[in-house]
């Protein structure tokens, strides 16, 4: 990889990560949301991985990080749904916007996302899905880049 690429890749990665975070945050107003923003952040991480190589890249993702973020993303979605199941009778009920008026207003204001709109738990759902997607896509690319070493480990066992 040439010198210009090595000078340019790390700052461009950070700008891509910031833009991906903006796409996740505006999921209920602008086009985008959890899946799309997670893919943009993953593309920033993968850019650094390809230009510098897996061992030398400034943005390092370890196995514990992948496992914990994936678990937090998937379990967070389910716990938000279970919170709706235990307070009202419906799984994944939108607790901030109380469409059927079945829960007391204390819970409804506690789960509402504090911004100019009345969106309920939608931005939190976008956030946990974004966490899960960014880690999933980066894990697949890291596995394919390290495949020679992993196959050698498998055959020596």
């Amino acid at each position: 990889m040439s010198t210009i690429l090595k000078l340019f890749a790390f700052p461009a990665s950070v700008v891509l990560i910031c833009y991906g975070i903006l796409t996740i945050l505006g999921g209920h107003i602008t086009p985008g949301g959890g899946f799309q923003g997670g893919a943009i952040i993953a593309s920033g991480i993968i850019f650094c991985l390809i230009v510098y190589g897996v061992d030398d890249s400034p943005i390092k993702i370890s196995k514990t990080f992948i496992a914990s973020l994936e678990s937090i993303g998937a379990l967070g979605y389910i716990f938000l749904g279970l919170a709706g199941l235990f307070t009202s009778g419906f799984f994944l009920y939108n607790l901030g916007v109380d469409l059927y008026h079945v829960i007391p207003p204390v819970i409804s204001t506690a789960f509402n996302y504090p911004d100019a709109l009345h969106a309920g738990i939608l931005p939190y759902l976008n956030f946990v899905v974004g966490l899960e997607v960014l880690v999933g896509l980066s894990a697949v690319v890291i596995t394919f880049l390290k495949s020679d070493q992993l196959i050698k480990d498998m055959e020596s066992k």
Partner: protein
Amino acid sequence: MSNGTRNLVAGLALLIFAATLFQTIYQFKPMIYPGISYLYNWVGPLIAPNMVTNVVFDWRGYDTLGEALILVTAVIVTLLVFGRGKIDLGGE
């Protein structure tokens, strides 16, 4: 069967199939009833301005849970293919 006869029969089968497909969409407009669309166009602005996110995460939030499950399964299977011998699970 020679090449010419085979082409002729294939062309005839394509014509019949195309006619069947086009007949289903001929005069389709009186058959559509937008039932749930009236309801969600009235309820939607109460929740958020983005109607796509309203349907994907609020009306069909359970399907999005299944979509996230697909992503988790794909990552687990990819890591399992390359990971034999890394963790000692017992046995021989």
